[in-house]
């Protein structure tokens, strides 16, 4: 039993030792725990030199001793099975036209002819484009923007033609504040309002394959371009535009002030004219004018006026005689007696006797007789004329002018006012005939005139 256990123990120990030996893979390749140190990465650049392609590989661990290490690629090659890499410092590369560009290749690290580590890779999936170049920024004053243009060698290539570009720009004082813009063309427009005025900017661009077949990694950044944004001061407006804006502002202000000042007097009556109120108009017409109203029964106030007393009978005869000469003999005595008014003027002495003053009816416009001349004006005018007898005297002859004209004349320029001081002038419409009509017409015209003049004064 003891011997047996010892034998088993020895066997197990040997097994453990044997299995503890690092890596004896089935395929015979030597694989050990140091494989991770030889991990590498590769990228390809197609048509980098005419029609030649470039495949570059490097160890991910920079501390790897690559003195005797070699790289080899096999598969997906034209006319040959495998190609060996060349070494440049710590980078291994192969430059050839013989890439099939379809299918996977196997890249192996060799040490002394033996493969240390291998990796399957599709060359078209690890394409690194060439860096863009010739980046320029042009400022357009009329458009207030910056046009960024750059060039890339892939525009003339056959395989990797479609790229995605990334433009990065920043204000130089903000070190890590990069702005990124992606585009598929080689032209970009930056608006001026999105940039700080009077500032220095740095801009650069890089590319990556953008096709459905070729894939890869970002290219190197292009050389940076520096540009300064112009000063955008508000005062640098167009002078003509400035003048126009100032003038228009002042014009508007002036119009507003004038509108406020002239609103009630000028603008509102035109824009919103007041309709005449008949009741008010009538009241205005028939109310006593307060101005120049001097009603007095004191004889001393009429000292300036020439008052002639009239002998009733004589005056009546003379009036009859006078009236017969001028009017048709239809005039009644009653009518004649009612003729009255301001007997003025030395030109008509006889008539002074004819006309008798009558009661003053200025207060009641309703007292006007129908069919006769409206004498509502008479008391008004008479009252207005009372303090001014001299003027009334001058207009004395005009009193009878209407009567005289009534006989035959049709055109008559009637005075706008009655020269009568007081009394009612009533005429028989039958007697008057034409004179009445003209008189009526004149008084009507006078009434209309008065109305319109009053309306205008309103």
């Amino acid at each position, binding site marked *: 039993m003891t011997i047996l256990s010892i034998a088993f123990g020895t066997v197990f120990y040997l097994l453990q030792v044997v299995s503890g030996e690092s890596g004896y893979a089935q395929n015979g390749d030597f694989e050990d725990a140091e494989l991770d140190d030889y991990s590498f990465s590769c990228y390809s650049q197609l048509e980098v030199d005419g029609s030649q392609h470039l495949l570059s590989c490097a160890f991910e661990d920079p501390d790897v001793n690559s003195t005797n290490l070699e790289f080899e690629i096999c598969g997906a090659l034209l*006319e040959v099975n495998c190609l060996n890499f060349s070494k440049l410092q710590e980078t291994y590369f192969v430059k050839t036209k013989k890439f*099939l*560009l*379809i*299918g996977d290749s196997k890249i192996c690290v060799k040490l002394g002819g033996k493969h240390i580590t291998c990796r399957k890779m599709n060359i078209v999936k690890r394409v690194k484009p060439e860096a863009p170049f010739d980046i320029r920024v042009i400022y357009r004053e009329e458009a207030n923007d910056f046009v960024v243009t750059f060039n890339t060698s892939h525009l003339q290539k056959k395989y990797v033609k479609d790229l995605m570009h990334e433009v990065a720009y920043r204000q130089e004082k903000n070190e890590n504040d990069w702005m990124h813009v992606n585009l598929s063309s080689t032209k970009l427009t930056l608006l001026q309002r999105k940039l700080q005025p009077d500032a220095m900017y740095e801009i650069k661009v890089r590319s990556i394959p953008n096709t459905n*077949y*070729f894939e890869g990694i970002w290219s190197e950044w292009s050389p940076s371009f520096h540009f300064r944004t112009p000063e955008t001061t508000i005062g640098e407006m167009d002078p003509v535009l400035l003048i126009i804006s100032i003038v228009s502002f002042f014009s508007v202000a002036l119009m507003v002030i004038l509108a406020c000042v002239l609103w009630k007097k000028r603008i509102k009556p035109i824009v919103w004219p007041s309709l005449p109120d008949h009741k008010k108009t009538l009241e205005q017409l028939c109310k006593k004018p307060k101005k120049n109203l001097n009603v007095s029964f004191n004889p001393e106030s009429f000292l300036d006026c020439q008052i002639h007393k009239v002998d009733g009978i004589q005056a009546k005869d003379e009036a009859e005689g006078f009236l017969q000469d001028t009017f048709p003999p239809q005039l009644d005595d009653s009518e004649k007696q009612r003729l009255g008014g301001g007997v003025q003027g030395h030109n008509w002495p006889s008539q002074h006797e004819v006309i008798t003053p009558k009661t003053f009816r200025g207060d009641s416009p309703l007292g006007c007789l129908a069919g006769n001349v409206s004498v509502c004006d008479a008391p008004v005018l008479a009252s207005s004329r009372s303090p001014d007898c001299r003027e009334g005297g001058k207009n004395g002859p005009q009193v009878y002018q209407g009567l005289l004209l009534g006989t035959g004349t049709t055109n008559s320029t009637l005075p706008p006012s009655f020269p009568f001081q007081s009394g009612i002038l009533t005429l028989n419409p039958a007697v008057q005939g034409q004179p009445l009509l003209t008189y009526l017409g004149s008084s009507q015209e006078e009434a209309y005139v008065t109305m319109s003049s009053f309306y205008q004064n309103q």
Partner: protein
Amino acid sequence: MFHVSFRYIFGIPPLILVLLPVASSDCDIEGKDGKEYQNVLMISIDELLDSMIEIDSNCLNNESNFFKKHSCDDNKEPMFLYRAARKLKQFLKMNISEDFNLHLSRVSQGTLKLLNCTIKVKGRKPPSLGEAQPTKNLEENKSLKEHKKQNDLCFLKILLQKIKTCWNKILRDAKEH
């Protein structure tokens, strides 16, 4: 009763064996989405055709036997491409230029890689291209050589055009389905 069973035993299996190659294809087309063809093969085919632009497409006096035997008919596209791709290899010997040979190899090898065919074709001696007969004198050999070269280039041009047409047909059918 025996003759009936004989009919089934000796009649039907040979029939099946004969019909199977027609119905099934030994090639599995991998690039039916057209990415490899449009981004790689088509570029090389166009480069080759551009280099032979001076050759007229009607240069062949009589239709080649190859095209009589093989055509891009329905359900026969992979086989045609397979045979055409193998045929292209014969023209590598012409050594027109390095780039020419590389594009030719890319079209041939790329097509075969995408077809992934399992057909085993019997090896037979490929027909000679442009070999002069030693019995004739040098000048006649040269002219014959030149004439054959032109014929070969003409055949190559037509072959490339038919390969392009057949690929387009495969991709069109793949999109429709």
